[in-house]
């Protein structure tokens, strides 16, 4: 190991880069430890200001630092300007806490919040001097692990990771840390390879190198073979209850202005509404609500501990929390009216608006609603149990309560979509504007409807995992149609860049052969792909075609009988349930929310030691 004091070399150089406080650590609430047995570095492979707002990683940071033998530290992806300096001066990436080179850690964990961070994972590895391919790593390199929603199909990145954690990791990481401690203190018997086999015994830990993918002569994926010592399927892990887990959250208050610069309290995990395109709705089942008392305690504690003037009550669908009204009233009672409250993801009906009014009694900024589809037929296909009447009465209530700017989220490319279904987005937007005009009368000038249209990306583990994704030219056609029809001074049309959805779609259902293409794209200079202004589609399509990836095939419909690259990763939801949902979608049949209606036997509460937990129980 080198004796260079990299930090003293790097620190003065930081004056030359943009926002140097991204790289200095020392934030209020960060945890610094000296002598420990296991050093772990957690990484959100994007810029600091994005990563700092990630709740999942913050929970793991707190959980691991509770262990006296572990130091959990952080590293984010550096911006280009710093990367150039690091390379020029031959300084490796350092952790924010101990400022040690990342490659001196025992474990390096990445959270994969979306597919488009894959090249950035390679960037962090590369700048740390860690071999990009797991197979090339030596005994002194850190064990590299991934987690997060995109890890539910780990195959496209399987060659980069030694381990992948499937599901909620707050207990699993402790098992991994324990194992590391034991293995190190025993003198690393059997080396890295033996450690990986041991790790594969921990529930939720997937060791890609212990699974050999098979391909047919036609190039079709034919499943994996698990090597000796590896379980046939890796089952998703989830905590049984959030009750009593509030102390685990540390509160790092960034120096840099983060994208979400606010305190966060998680109301519940899971969502059982069952929208058929939604991966989160499957992979976080079942619904587990935090008891109201603990929510309110956490609100008070987190505001006092951070000094934030803004609070977010986070969850997949915040207004579904069974005692949301009491929580909002309780928050106002403790925190007063100076607190800005944000409720991400509100449901589309008058109750949603009532809550939005409670959340922001004075100020009326923009309001966001997600009908997802324009026509009733489409909403039935995706199991979005919202009627046009719900939408119109919600916006009516919103206009009456003082909002004049409403943002609507829609998707194109849903299975079975016709031209009329896309046009229905335009019609609905116009109806909403008309409702606004009739309410605002002479004051209609300030009305603004923002129509935000994304493209369906079929995700693994969802009923739409077999669906066809729109081909690039189809996306452009539909967007052009919307653009030409949504020409109104008061309706703004925003769309997701075609290349972003196509690349996401190519990654989302890929098998292990995709690792080569990701590596090739990284080598050509691709990075920060999730930023539509930085995604370099030319370099990407070059890399994909050089590596033999057929984009049309990757976006195409899958056969129900065909093996899928993530079949050996189980979310706990059975394939039979997904098939039946896929079929029900074709006939527009809806499936109820199991929180209040009957259980649809999706498999989670049958096969995992889990059950729905409501705050009101």
């Amino acid at each position, binding site marked *: 190991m080198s004796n260079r004091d990299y930090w003293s070399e790097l*620190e*003065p150089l930081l004056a030359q880069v943009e926002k140097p*406080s991204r790289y*200095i650590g020392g934030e209020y609430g960060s945890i610094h430890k000296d002598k420990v047995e296991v050093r772990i570095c957690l990484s959100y492979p994007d810029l600091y200001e994005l990563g700092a707002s990630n709740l999942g990683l913050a929970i793991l940071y707190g959980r691991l630092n509770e262990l006296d033998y572990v130091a959990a530290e952080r590293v984010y992806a550096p911006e280009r300007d710093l990367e150039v300096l690091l390379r020029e001066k031959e300084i490796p990436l350092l952790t924010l806490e101990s400022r040690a080179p990342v490659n001196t850690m025992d474990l390096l964990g990445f959270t994969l919040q979306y597919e488009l961070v894959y090249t950035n994972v390679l960037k962090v590895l590369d700048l740390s001097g860690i071999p990009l391919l797991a197979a090339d790593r030596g005994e002194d390199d850190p064990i590299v692990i991934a987690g997060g929603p995109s890890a539910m199909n780990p195959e496209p990145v399987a060659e980069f990771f030694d381990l992948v954690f499937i599901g909620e990791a707050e207990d699993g990481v402790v098992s991994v840390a324990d194992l590391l401690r034991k293995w190190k203190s025993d003198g690393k018997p059997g080396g890295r390879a033996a450690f990986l086999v041991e790790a594969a015994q921990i529930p939720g830990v997937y060791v890609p190198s212990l699974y050999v993918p098979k391909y047919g002569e036609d190039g079709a994926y034919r499943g994996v073979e698990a090597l000796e010592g590896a379980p046939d399927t890796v089952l998703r892990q989830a905590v049984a209850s959030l009750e009593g887990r509030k102390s685990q959250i540390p509160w790092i208050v960034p*120096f840099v202005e983060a994208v979400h610069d606010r305190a966060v309290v998680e109301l519940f995990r899971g969502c059982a509404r069952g929208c058929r395109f939604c991966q989160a709705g499957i992979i976080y089942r079942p619904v587990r609500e935090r008891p109201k008392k603990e929510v309110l305690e956490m609100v008070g504690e987190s505001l006092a501990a*951070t*000094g934030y003037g803004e609070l977010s009550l986070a969850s997949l669908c915040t207004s579904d929390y069974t005692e949301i009204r009491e929580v909002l009233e309780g928050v106002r009672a403790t925190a007063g009216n*100076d607190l800005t409250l944000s409720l991400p993801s509100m449901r589309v009906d008058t109750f949603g608006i009532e809550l939005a009014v409670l959340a922001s009694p004075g100020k009326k900024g923009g309001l966001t609603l997600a009908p997802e589809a324009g026509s009733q037929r489409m909403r039935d296909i995706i199991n979005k149990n919202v009627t046009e009447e719900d939408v119109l009465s919600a916006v009516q209530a919103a206009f009456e309560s003082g909002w004049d700017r409403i943002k609507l989220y829609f998707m194109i490319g849903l299975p079975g979509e016709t031209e009329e279904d896309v046009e229905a987005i335009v019609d609905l937007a116009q109806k909403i504007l008309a409702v606004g005009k009739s309410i605002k009368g002479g004051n209609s000038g300030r009305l603004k409807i923002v129509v935000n249209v994304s493209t369906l990306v079929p995700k693994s583990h969802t009923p739409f995992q077999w669906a066809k994704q729109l081909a690039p030219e189809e996306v452009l056609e539909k967007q052009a149609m919307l653009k030409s029809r949504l020409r109104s001074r008061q309706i703004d049309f925003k769309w997701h860049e075609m290349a972003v959805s196509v690349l996401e779609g190519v990654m989302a259902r890929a098998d292990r052969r995709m690792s080569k293409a990701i590596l090739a794209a990284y080598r050509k200079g691709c990075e920060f792909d999730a930023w539509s202004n930085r995604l370099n589609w030319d370099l990407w399509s070059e890399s994909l075609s050089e590596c033999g990836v057929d984009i049309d095939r990757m976006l195409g419909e899958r056969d129900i009988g065909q093996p899928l690259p993530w079949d050996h990763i189980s979310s706990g939801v059975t394939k039979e349930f997904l098939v039946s949902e896929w079929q029900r979608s074709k006939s527009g049949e809806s499936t109820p929310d199991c929180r209040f209606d009957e259980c649809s036997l999706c498999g989670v509460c049958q096969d995992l030691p889990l059950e729905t937990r409501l705050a009101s129980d």
Partner: protein
Amino acid sequence: MSSKYRVRYEKAPAIRMLAHLEVARVLERACRRSGLPVAMSQGFRPHQKITFATNLPVGVASEVEYADIALVGEMSTDSIRDRLVDALPEGMLVSAVAALPPGTAALQSQDISSTFQLYSAPEEAVQTLEGIQSADVIQIIRKKGTKDLESPGRFLKNIQAVSGGNNSASSASIQVELVTSATGGGLGIKDLLAVIREMPGGSGVWAKRVGLSILSNEGRKDPLDV
């Protein structure tokens, strides 16, 4: 009802890379964490009544930064200091607090003298700075372009090499005094650092504000001497 206090705090070398807005946010949040009854402004988006009297560029540290805080009611200056010390992150120690009598002029409305210590500067930087001091006109480079500054000696006062510090033989510590007027303009520490950075061996230069006083007809005054 509300009473004002002037707080002196440091921006230690460890956090010298913070931008002014970031320092301001840290202090605002520390005020909320501390539970001090900071007065709020009225209006659409109420905010804490804190005035940042001094302002430092990224990369520059300081022992003497000042902010004026309005509290609802009165408190002893000692307990204000203690509460802030507990709530601030390392590197932003509050060293003193003074109560401001009503009508105290804001720091920004007065002429200020700052003493900066420059570290890791090349030996020749003293001559370079003296050259600036005695020039009739110099060019300063800003993001928006270059501009001419006449008689820079009005702003750049005492320049002296100082001994001590842990500098290697080839680099020096230099002290300079910079005067800023309430009307703005003039020469900033950033401009001096930019010049020295361009010199051979100057890329690692950095600065810390070590003294700050108010200039008035009666002479120099400590900002806490109110």
